[in-house]
């Protein structure tokens, strides 16, 4: 049994029908203390097939993606298309505050469980719908994938190099995580409103819109100057700047920032000076004059000794120097680097979570906020398939063991 503290969202119950497009929403609400019930199709959701896997064994109970974004949830199986499954779902809705879903627009209406139907059962219910392009508009029935969302959200065109197509961030979808976090914010915003209206509502989250909220300068550059940002064409007036630099054992992120931030370059010069690697140009350059009028040749004179300095040092050495001198430089890190960070250790960031059936304790990213009042925390590992069927169906809905057995045999649960 999980040791669930009250949590900031302690009194609330969430029914989570989402796939990978929305799992983060329920995880956030659960980590904040809400009672989140992940409702899976009988046999388990297909999202369990997404890798990576525990000990590289592809298995629905071993998906590390599933583990990551289903913490602090209980789990039941239910066929919400069958008549009996719908009866059960309606009963659950009566006792819930939120339903979160990521079906194609119109699907829930089609099976009789749209917002209008749910609202009749429970006027306070907040239905959070996460879809590729939203519930309305000409693209509402379009399909998405992370790469499509990234492309149509304007977050792909600015990144990459001229020898390759524009690129996305590799591995699991980032777009869906932005949408999931937005959905959780939408859910809590609707809850805030419910306290003055006593009414729930449907929250319409578009993954495309979640992504476009990540773009820096892309829309404003077009809006103000009719410039389309493209890879390498960033709005530094006339300057080509190096932003990721090779060092002895990897890369570091640094750029010579001009204009109002030009003072931030001084600590790097001080650090290089301490190692005897700042040349006369760097030592004598007046940083208050680093602005749009600075020439590309001068940028080259800043960058040349800097490149040499970085190549002569490791990521760890440069990070240490950056910390000592206040240089705004960070190493290009990997999960291995992050898991050995003294900063994260000092803040007790990592959270150990037991997986008894694997005989293992896994290390998870910990709370997203540090607070002494009911901090967000992982209250239990992701549910196994139908792990809480008995607890919820028998214990809460008073379905008899015989009936439960029939429901299992007929594929309803």
């Amino acid at each position: 049994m999980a040791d669930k503290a009250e949590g900031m969202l302690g009194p609330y119950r969430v029914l989570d029908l989402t796939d990978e497009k929305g799992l983060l929403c329920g995880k956030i609400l659960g980590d904040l203390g809400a009672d989140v019930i992940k409702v899976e199709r009988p046999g388990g959701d297909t999202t369990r097939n997404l890798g990576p896997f525990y000990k590289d064994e592809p298995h629905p109970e071993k998906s590390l993606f599933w583990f990551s974004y289903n913490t602090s949830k209980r789990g039941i199986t239910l066929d919400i298309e069958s008549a009996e499954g719908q009866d059960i779902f309606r009963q659950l809705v009566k006792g819930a505050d939120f339903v979160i879903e990521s079906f194609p627009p119109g699907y829930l209406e089609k099976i009789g469980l749209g917002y209008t139907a749910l609202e009749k059962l429970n006027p306070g219910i907040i239905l959070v719908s996460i879809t590729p392009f939203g519930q309305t508009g000409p693209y509402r029935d379009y399909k998405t994938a992370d790469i499509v969302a990234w492309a149509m959200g304007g977050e792909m065109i600015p990144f990459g190099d001229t020898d390759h197509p524009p690129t996305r961030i590799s591995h699991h979808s980032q777009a869906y995580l932005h949408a999931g976090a937005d959905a959780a914010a939408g859910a809590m915003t609707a809850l805030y409103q419910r306290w003055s209206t006593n009414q729930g509502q449907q929250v319409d989250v578009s993954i495309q819109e979640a992504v476009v909220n990540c773009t820096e300068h892309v829309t404003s550059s077009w809006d103000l100057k009719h410039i389309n940002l493209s890879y390498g064409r960033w709005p530094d007036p006339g300057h080509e700047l190096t932003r990721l630099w090779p060092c002895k054992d990897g890369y570091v992120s640094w750029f010579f920032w001009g204009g109002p931030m030009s003072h931030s370059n001084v600590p790097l010069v001080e650090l290089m000076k301490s190692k005897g690697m700042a040349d006369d140009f760097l030592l004598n350059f007046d940083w208050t004059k680093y602005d749009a009028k600075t020439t590309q040749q001068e940028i080259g004179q800043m960058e040349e000794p800097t490149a040499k300095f970085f190549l002569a040092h490791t990521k760890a050495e440069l990070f240490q120097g950056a910390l000592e001198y206040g240089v705004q430089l960070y190493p290009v890190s990997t999960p291995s680097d992050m898991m050995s960070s003294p900063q994260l250790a000092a803040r007790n960031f990592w959270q150990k979570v037991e997986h008894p059936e694997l005989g293992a304790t896994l290390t998870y990213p910990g709370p997203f906020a540090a607070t002494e009042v009911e901090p967000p925390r992982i209250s239990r590992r992701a549910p196994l398939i139908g792990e809480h069927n008995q607890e919820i169906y028998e214990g809460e809905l008073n379905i008899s063991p015989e009936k439960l057995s029939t429901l299992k045999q007929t594929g309803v649960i």
Partner: protein
Amino acid sequence: MDKKLFEGIRVIDFTWHLTGPLTTKHFSDMGAEVIRVESRRRPDIQRVNERTGSFKQFTTGKLSITLNIATPEGLNLIRQLIATADVIVDNFAGGVMERLGLGYNAVRKIKPDIIVLSSCMQGQTGPHAKHPGSGHKLTALAGFNHITGWPDQEPVWIAAYTDFIAPRYNILAILAALEYRRRTGKGQYLDMSQYEAGIQFMAPLVLDYGVNDRVVGRMGNRLPNAAPHNAYRCQGEDRWCAIAVFTDDEWNSFCNVIGSPALAADPRFASLTSRKDNEEELDILVNEWTVSRTAEEVMKMMQEAGVAAGVVETGEDLLDNDAQYKHRHTF
């Protein structure tokens, strides 16, 4: 007119740059009274930086006052204002609010149920707390640059990516704290680290390292469970369309769209496994078809056949061309 959603909530906003202003914008957009406290001596770099429109974008709906809180009179004025507030937000480097005499313990004496959120690079405690930085570089520390780009190439820069993750968690924290205050009457201090927010979006790769001892690298636009899966060159300068084919059904539809139904059964591409094995060859074939068509045409043809596809949109596309944004009045 109905009451605005956050009407009656007053936010004192000490933020600048990206993360902080994006955080308070959620509340000003929905009716809270957000009062920016600005310094004339060190104005927000987004305000003075004429090359971008970020300041205009992220400061909508907010009020602004200027105040030198380093003077006793200034400090006194801000304390009076804080006594009337519900939420305080800052995104200075760690420890700055304390130094200004406006740390949580000081302000809770003025307003016991105040909610204070500080958002900095690595949190207010720990050995790196006071290290200044920006999201452009923190994106590297949180692991995102390492996994962006091509396997045999340098990592790719993705601007201040984590500056767009952190505000989401900041907003969530404030919303949860408002709900908690409603029930209990208690305020709280929320110490937010952009680094820790970013790592939430890296969770599967953190677990992969912890469990399997694997550090994954860059995969370009590839994905293990899809092919074709890339951005393909289209007609015109710098025009691209992203296409993602996951299932065999989608593959069959894709082949029909490009007018080569026979390709569906071609042993080089008939199954996902074979498509993955011959992905380079497949990408060349797809590019040959897309290059003579417009990105919009490719998207439309694919989507109508049930294949996920989308124009790699530019700023111009987002604001002027995309029919979906127009319909939904996104901007």
